[in-house]
């Protein structure tokens, strides 16, 4: 972490504010994600983790603050520029968000249809789809519909879809929510392997302590819309602060 001072962040959030009516969800949240890092954001349900990550990909407009990804302020970007920038970001949704009217193959091909240049840079669509499915160990599910897959398999396919454009940053919104402990562990290991293979920077939103323990290089606790505490898993889990301890006690 000492080298952080010399590193340039791939993603930076400064003083982020977001309210829904009288409900002030984010009250000046700050974040820096460095290259190759796995940063875990932990917080209670309803603490604004998902709102924050949706602000990061331009799905929600923040009220105040700046969001910089690869030196570009995404709040000021137009639709076209934002779409280009989004090819550098993979997003794993909480409920997988697979298109249920499409097969697994079509789900994976979908992000490629607007980014033909990416296909030319790499290989053909078919090869990319097969490679992404092999990465998550689901090569034989290529022609199945999402409804025919288990929850864990759906999450893997969603991960494959998030990876298909070979993004530099991957955002995981509650990657293990709704999964049994064994499948959750498989997904966590898969995330770690992918990070090692593609040297991606990962932002993981979770309240799963096991997930944080295995995958995090650094953690931020989001409480009441601000960074309440920051540090490695060991530092935070050994903290004497009762609010921090509350996250780690079962």
């Amino acid at each position, binding site marked *: 972490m000492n080298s952080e001072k010399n590193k340039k962040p791939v993603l930076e959030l400064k003083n982020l504010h977001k309210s829904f009516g009288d409900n002030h969800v984010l009250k000046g949240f700050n974040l820096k994600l460095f290259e190759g890092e796995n940063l875990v954001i932990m917080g209670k349900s309803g603490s604004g983790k998902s709102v924050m990550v*949706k602000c990061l*990909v*331009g*799905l929600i407009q923040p009220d105040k603050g700046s969001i910089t990804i690869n030196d570009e302020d995404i709040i000021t970007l137009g*639709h076209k520029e934002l*779409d*280009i920038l*989004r*090819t550098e*970001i993979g*997003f794993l*949704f*909480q*409920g997988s*968000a*697979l*298109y*249920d*009217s499409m097969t697994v193959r079509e789900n994976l091909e*979908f*992000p490629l*249809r*607007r*980014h033909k240049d990416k296909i030319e840079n790499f290989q053909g669509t078919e090869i990319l789809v097969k490679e992404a499915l092999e990465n998550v160990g689901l090569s034989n599910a290529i022609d199945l519909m999402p409804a025919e897959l288990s929850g864990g398999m759906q999450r893997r396919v969603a991960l494959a*879809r998030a990876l298909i454009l070979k993004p530099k940053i991957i955002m995981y919104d509650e990657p293990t929510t709704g999964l049994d402990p064994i499948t959750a562990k498989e997904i966590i290991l898969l995330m770690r392997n992918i990070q090692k293979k593609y040297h991606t920077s990962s932002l993981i939103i979770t309240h799963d302590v096991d997930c944080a323990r295995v995958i995090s290089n650094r953690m931020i606790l989001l409480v009441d819309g601000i960074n309440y505490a920051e540090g490695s898993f060991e530092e935070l889990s050994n903290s004497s602060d009762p609010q921090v301890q509350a996250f780690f006690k079962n």
Partner: protein
Amino acid sequence: MIFQLLMDKTSTILTRTKSFFAEIGDMTLFAGRFFREVFSPPFEFTELLRQCYNMGNRSLLLVGVTGFILGLVFTLQSRPTLMQFGAQSWMASMVSLSIVREIGPVIIALICAGRIGSGIGAELGSMRVTEQIDAMEVSGTNPFKYLVITRIVATTLMLPLLIIMGDTIALLGSAIVENLKGDVSFLLYFNQVFDALRFSDILPATVKSVFFGFAIGLVGCYKGYNCSKGTVGVGEASNSAVVYISMLLFVIDFIAVFVTDIFF
């Protein structure tokens, strides 16, 4: 006590009226966005064709059966009355004019509001609550173009075709009754039909059906696209889509009849 109750009722009515007009305003903005984006690339032709197939081809049986029964029942019900006045020879003219100008488009549009409008509302609503629309946006595809524009264009194109087909089948149903009950040959029946129908009958009905199709697509997409409140919201989106479309169809029909009356 009574005064308080009256105040509460008035307040509820005012709130509901306000939210109704707010929704109409939102829907108008949604329609405005449709017109802004429909002519700008990228165009989703493959998805448009898929939607045309889904909405057109898959509605054929329902529209066909409805049209056939409509023509059959309408003729059976009208026959005794016309016979009372010795006017059964007017049957073909009366049925064809009624079906082509009014009953056919309205009934088939209402049937399609139930089948297509609620389907769009439920499908887009469920995509919204399961974050599929967000996933589309994150992957660099404009979900409004991919989901909304294709569906509205598909309903606008398909509904006139379905109505023309439904009207034709309704006339066939009517011809069968006339053939069986009144010994009128098919050739004579359809000769009378084509003698009765004018360009001024077919054109306004066809133009009206284009607006019906647009209304079905627009309201279905608006309700589904802006769905919230989880699975309950999906049901509400589907249900209120049908209610709003049905109301809108009658309003459009009234305006169409009014305008037709002025120009034809």
